[in-house]
């Protein structure tokens, strides 16, 4: 298991801790097998901590996201804290989207609707040359004067990380001066190839500086739920076990974060989001994490409820709840299965959440031939096989033939859509839904990611699919009237990963460019899963 080391201010990247990859293709069962290091998986060589997976590479990347933005979407969404981005102004461009999501989230959970409080040190050429620390000090003081926050996060960016601006010292200085946690986050974009390291950077800061170190009381009915902005579905669920919910990190207060060390257990709506904080709370503060799959689909929810009940000594209540819910939902789900029969779906979301979503869809009898997940963590920080969400999917719901790991990459998504021809897709992240629409495929944009959770989640998804299918005709009409942005050459391709296998083919697609005699500079790539 990863040793959570809060002596260091900078978190270890996902690829270093977990061997995370962002590009792969093959069957889900193959990836699951390779990811189980303990059973001798891994194809990139090494053993134990050094074990790695192979990764597909290509001649270019069309799109991605930034570590810094993911740190911002957590640290910048704490209700009574302020995030200072120690960066040039452009690094704050994500704020526009983030503010919308935050306001929706606040509304869904019944909080007062307000804007995010994220500021920037607005660094310029001079600051890059002479250092931006004085500007940072000024900004910390301004933030304190204007907002009197309960905590201040300082996020590094590429520019400040390269010049080595010492945000750690400023954080120490102002923690003492202001008497509140001032937290440095080393979340610069180049730190990791996948944005999820940004989650870990903010959670690392929370573990170091906000979580109460020596809690005087234990709240035996409190469960930390690591989530994003989804509606409150956990409270009614956990009420059946006489448990209360402590939502972290988004939209939490600083006190909500501080009391995580007093809770009886930690769960996450998605293992990819919650892995670091769950493991940290367990290792450093003795708060156990639920060692089970996620609460998606009937079987997953059963296992998850039972594991949580075991940790909190509520086994009887759990069995009552499970029996009651099974009796309630099974007839409804049977009805839904009939209405959904024959539909072909496709999941394009983040890693562990995608695995959960596929369980739900298969539970409803939806055909799943393929999927595009945005990265893959071969293991989570606990390294416990009980949390292996991909293995849970494959073992209980069967294989996915076209299982593609691809960090957005609309050009690959386009080809996959044309090959698989799903009736609908489910998606959370921006960028790909319009591609599907242009091909006549309606998208389910899961803005409220909690809709698929638990027993009711299976029913919710059934109704959502039925509703979106009623709009299929609209998308088909749309497809007739839009022009594809891709060239005929790319439109004629049938393999979304062809450029990983043969990067030199890219020259075929560039009109007017002669294919160079030498292939120098293009990445070689192994055949097969490489």
């Amino acid at each position, binding site marked *: 298991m990863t040793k959570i080391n809060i002596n*260091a*201010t900078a978190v270890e990247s996902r*690829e*270093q801790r977990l*061997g995370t990859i962002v590009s792969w293709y093959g069957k889900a069962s193959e990836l699951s097998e390779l990811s189980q290091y303990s059973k001798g998986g891994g194809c990139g060589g090494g053993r134990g901590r*050094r074990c*790695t997976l192979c990764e597909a590479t290509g001649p270019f990347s069309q799109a991605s996201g930034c570590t810094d933005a993911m740190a911002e979407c957590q640290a910048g969404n704490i209700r009574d804290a302020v995030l200072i981005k120690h960066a040039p102004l452009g690094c704050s461009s994500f704020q526009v989207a983030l503010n919308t999501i935050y306001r929706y989230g606040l509304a869904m959970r019944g909080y007062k609707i307000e804007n995010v409080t994220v500021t920037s040190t607005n660094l310029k050429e001079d600051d890059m040359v002479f*250092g931006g620390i004085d500007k940072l000090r000024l900004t910390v003081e301004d933030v304190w004067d204007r907002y009197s926050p309960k905590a201040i996060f300082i996020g590094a960016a590429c520019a400040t990380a*390269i010049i080595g601006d*010492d945000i750690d010292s400023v954080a120490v200085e102002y923690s003492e001066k202001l008497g509140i946690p001032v937290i440095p986050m080393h979340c610069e974009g180049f730190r990791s190839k996948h944005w999820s390291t940004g989650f870990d950077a903010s959670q690392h800061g929370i573990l170091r500086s906000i979580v109460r170190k020596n809690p005087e009381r234990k709240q035996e009915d409190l469960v930390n739920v690591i989530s994003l902005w989804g509606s409150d579905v956990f409270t009614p669920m956990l009420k059946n076990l006489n448990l209360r919910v402590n939502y972290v990190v988004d939209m939490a207060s600083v006190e909500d974060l501080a009391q995580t060390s007093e809770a009886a257990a930690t769960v996450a709506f998605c293992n990819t989001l919650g892995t670091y904080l769950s493991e940290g709370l367990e290792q450093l503060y003795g708060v156990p994490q639920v060692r089970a799959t996620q609460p998606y689909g009937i079987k997953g929810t059963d296992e998850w409820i039972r594991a949580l009940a075991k940790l909190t000594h509520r086994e009887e209540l759990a069995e009552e709840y499970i029996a009651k819910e099974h009796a309630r939902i099974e007839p409804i789900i049977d009805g839904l299965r009939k209405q959904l029969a024959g539909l072909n779906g496709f999941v394009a979301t983040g890693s562990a959440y995608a695995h959960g979503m596929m369980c739900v869809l298969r539970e409803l009898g939806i055909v799943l031939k393929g999927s595009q997940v945005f990265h893959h963590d071969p293991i989570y920080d606990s390294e416990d096989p009980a949390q292996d969400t991909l293995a849970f999917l494959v073992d209980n719901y069967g294989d996915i033939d076209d299982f593609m790991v691809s960090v957005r990459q609309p050009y690959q998504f386009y080809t996959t859509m044309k090959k698989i021809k799903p009736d609908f897709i489910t998606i959370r992240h921006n960028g790909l839904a319009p591609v599907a629409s242009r091909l006549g495929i309606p998208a389910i944009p899961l803005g409220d990611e909690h809709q698929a959770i638990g027993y009711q989640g299976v029913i919710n998804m059934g109704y959502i699919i039925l509703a979106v299918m009623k709009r299929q005709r609209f998308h088909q009409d749309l497809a007739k009237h839009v022009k594809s942005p891709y060239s005929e050459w790319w439109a004629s391709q049938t393999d979304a990963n062809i450029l990983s296998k043969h990067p030199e083919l890219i020259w075929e697609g560039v009109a007017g460019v002669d294919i160079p005699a030498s292939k120098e500079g293009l990445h070689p790539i192994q055949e097969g899963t490489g």
Partner: protein
Amino acid sequence: MSKKIKQIAIYGKGGIGKSTTTSNITAALSEAGYNVMQFGCDPKSDSTNTLRGGTYIPTVLDTLREKTKVDAHEVIHKGFNGIHCVEAGGPAPGVGCAGRGIITAVQFFKQQNIFEELDLDVVLYDVLGDVVCGGFAVPIREGIAEHVFTVSSADFMSIYASNNLFKGISNYSKSGGALLGGVIANSINQSYSKEIVDDFVRRTNTQVLEYVPRSVTVTQSELQGKTTIEAAPDSAQADVYRSLAKKIASHTESKVPTPLEVSDLRAWASGWGQHLLELERQSGALETLVKV
């Protein structure tokens, strides 16, 4: 309870004998029974060469470049008497950012908790010259090295580099950074060299830890790819390094230095220049007198 690991940074102008001095201190500490790591923070990556028979080791940054997942053990190489040798490495001259390289390498080590795992007593960072950017200051920031020593000769440019370092230390001292242990005076063979360094440390509120004479034994040892401690253990020079290592091992109290302003430093250097000219004239006059 884990013991406190003594972390020391040794700075000095390029070419002043910093790696030679550091390697000899490391070797002497190891010989005295301490479990020691030497961490080279210079893109040239040759800090630990004389601890390993003159050979280069794969650097942290080169290894991180080859693969995404690296275990710290992979970049720690055994040297003379079981010393743990690490080279941060860095880009070729004229490209990239050597300072960021030091940040990356030092953070990588800190994250893996490796010093505790190896049960080290002392870690010595051998850091290139002037504090040229934020990256080169990383070893003296909060939570890394506690004590800084600077290697300096009586040469004005070397003193200038030391004074610059003192500015960095006094800057970071306000936020929990390392403090100055003192100056290791190197290549001190003339009496006036000693006087110059003594005068500089007096004005900057620090001390000379040891006067290390220039010695051909050091050169001979280096040509064999060895430290003086290893190649000429019975030499007087080896004893100088042993004495220095002993002082470093027992050193506990470091201070905030008072660096000179550039104009004061120039005036000071010019004053010494005049004085040295005067000395030369006097000895010249004396020679003339003798000849007559």
